[in-house]
């Protein structure tokens, strides 16, 4: 089946022991779209992300990146196929400088990570590329700082820069504004919007912050107790009674 979806999930399911955490998830995301996966805590958002990004293989179902089956591949292969992700808990190289954090994915992308001689930063092209990525996220003046000394919001931006450096076709962001203050959240929303509008990259984010989701996503998927409860535009989701019930914690009538 040929489709113009850049990311397609078929009947995905994952079990922890006998417990089905997620079940029967199928969705299809078109190129350049900004979609969001929402759901109350414990709905299975992170499990879903881990299963499609190579943290562990899903128990059931298939994952396609532009029609290529990538189900169950290890994370580094999935990155090579063009999908790169961030984590809910900031996942960066804390004791390295900002520019080193960005250089690492670039070195790996250029297959130079087994190059034993020469310095990564003696290479004009590398310096230029690192700078480009840092300018995208607004950290160009922090390049030489050690990441550990940055403010929390800036650390989240470093992770964004690490992901962007690989120039993926699909970017998965797991709660990109988690733990941020309102100003940092604002800043991150603006950044994601800008990146999505200029790069043609497909974004798929998870969020529990409704404000963030409704101000960003063109399409929203709602996950509830491991099942896809609804999908649609922000307006459709906002007016969906089932979704409202799920979030208010009442029993959903089938």
């Amino acid at each position, binding site marked *: 089946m040929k489709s113009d979806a850049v990311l397609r999930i078929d009947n995905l399911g994952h079990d922890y022991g006998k417990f089905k955490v997620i079940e029967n998830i199928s969705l299809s995301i078109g190129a350049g779209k900004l979609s969001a996966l929402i759901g109350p805590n414990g709905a299975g958002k992170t499990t879903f992300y881990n299963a499609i990004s190579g943290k562990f293989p899903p128990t059931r179902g298939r994952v396609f990146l532009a029609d290529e089956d990538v189900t169950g591949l290890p*994370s580094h292969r999935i990155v090579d196929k063009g999908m790169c992700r961030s984590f809910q808990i900031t*996942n960066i190289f804390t004791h390295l*400088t900002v520019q080193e954090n960005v250089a690492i994915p670039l070195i790996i992308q250029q297959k130079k*990570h087994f190059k034993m001689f020469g310095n*990564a930063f003696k290479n004009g092209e590398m310096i230029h590329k690192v700078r480009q990525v840092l300018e995208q996220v607004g950290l160009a003046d922090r390049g030489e700082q050690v990441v550990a000394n940055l403010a929390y919001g800036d650390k989240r931006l470093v992770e964004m820069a690490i*992901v962007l450096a690989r120039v993926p076709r699909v970017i998965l962001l797991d709660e990109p504004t988690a733990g941020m203050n309102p100003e940092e959240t604002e800043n991150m929303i603006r950044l994601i919007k800008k990146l999505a509008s200029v790069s043609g990259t497909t974004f798929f984010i998870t969020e529990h912050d409704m404000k963030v989701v409704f101000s960003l996503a063109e399409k929203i998927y709602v996950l509830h107790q491991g099942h896809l409860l609804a999908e649609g535009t922000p307006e459709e989701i906002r007016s969906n009674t089932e979704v409202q019930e799920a979030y208010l914690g009442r029993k959903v009538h089938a």
Partner: protein
Amino acid sequence: MALRAHLNIAGPAVLVLVLMIAPLLVPTYWVMILSEILILGLMAVSFNLLLGYSGLLSFGQGAFFGIGAYSAALMLQAGYTNLFLILLVGMLLALIIAAVVGFFSVKLDEIFFAMITLGFGMLLFSIAHNWRDVTRGSDGLPVFVLPTLNFFGAEVSFYSPIHMYYLVFSVVLVAIVLLWLIVHSPFGLVLRATRENKQRVSFVGGKVNLLRIVAFTISGTFTGLAGVLFCLFNSMATPEFMHWSFSAKPVIMSIIGGTGVFLGPLFGAAIFFFLEQIIIRFTENWMLFLGVVLVLIVIYFPQGVLGTLKSKLLKGEPK
């Protein structure tokens, strides 16, 4: 910036100069101690490629040291006296065994990695200890004939401690320069990234296990080289090199000197031997006092002696 740059160039230059003229200034006994410091220092610096740069605590490094030493002793006994051949074969054997041990060990982390490398080390120790036909067991393998070197037409032997010192110094210098290049290469940077966060490396496309196997193999190869040198210096290969207590030496040296500074472990080796020499004049129980000093260093020099001094000196300097 200026101070850091000056220190990074002047420090090593002064060190090389001092080590070059030292044999002319100190008594022969101390020339031999200096040789020992350089050999064990090389072992510690290559060990630190794992502890300091990859975040892996190997407790089986003695095995590769022993492989280098036995390889040299066996070759010399069999009548091979070409210096470069002996150095190369020792490194090659250590490389092969390190690649195998690394293959099985790098999937583990922290204490589990320490235990599996310790296990492999003790396995190789047992072979050296019990395969009496080849290794002569706990008696060790003595070396009676040292290799010679054709130095611009002149035949140089290494029976005098001064000649031996300059051989050790030259080989260790080349090895340390190579290790420095590796640590500062793109590979070295990605390796430090795996120490910081191996999950993130894997999620930007890096093959963490392969990176670690390569690091482990390089570390084992240079440790094997140190073993070859020690066998020549010591005229003997014994199974004790491969015992886990010998594997603890580079660990202690690296922690004394500082795992976060490239030359930290070499300084640690120097401090280790100087302390031994000083304390042993007063008491046989020098390990007791080493313990006390180790405790003080861990408390007052959290980044190791060289590491802490360097960061105090460069306080306020941008990185």
